[in-house]
């Protein structure tokens, strides 16, 4: 009877999906609500593109 190590298989699939690179977690910066607020505010301060004439 063949025993499958599902955790190991899953890890290998994920490794394949990453093109063989270990680690996996992309370093995407996750913003707090305060950081989002600042980002949105600074955007509002800029003259809007759509203002046109």
């Amino acid at each position: 009877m063949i025993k499958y190590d599902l955790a190991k298989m899953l890890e290998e699939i994920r490794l394949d999906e990453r093109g063989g690179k270990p680690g996996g977690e992309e370093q995407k910066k996750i913003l707090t609500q305060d950081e989002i607020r600042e980002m949105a505010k600074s955007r509002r301060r800029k003259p809007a593109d759509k203002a046109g004439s």
Partner: protein
Amino acid sequence: MTEKRKVRVVLADDEAHVRLYVKTVVKSMGCEVVGEASNGQEAIELFDRLSPDLVLLDINMPVMDGISALKALRVKSDKVAIVMLTSLASADIVQECLDAGANYHLRKDLSMKELKEEIRDTWLAHLQDQREAP
């Protein structure tokens, strides 16, 4: 448009419990939830039918995601306020949404009080922008 008219809201999220949570918050603010959608396509259809003042859009949804819906809605109207909802607010996604014309971006893990304050502030800022628009 009278001052006392309720703000009409369309809410789009594929998770019913999130819709219920956000709906509770929005209604407690005195707004009227005129429509609920479970994907971006439905949100656009509701927008066409109901002309809401504010659309709350989840990002990850089946059929049509929130960012595609945002872009389609902005082609239709620059007057509607659009607020994106997300569980994980990665900087590039937030930037993309703001670039595409979202008024604001809310994390779903905020408390009711915070959510209320953020939505209210966004709405007031939107009204001010509309008044200052040429």
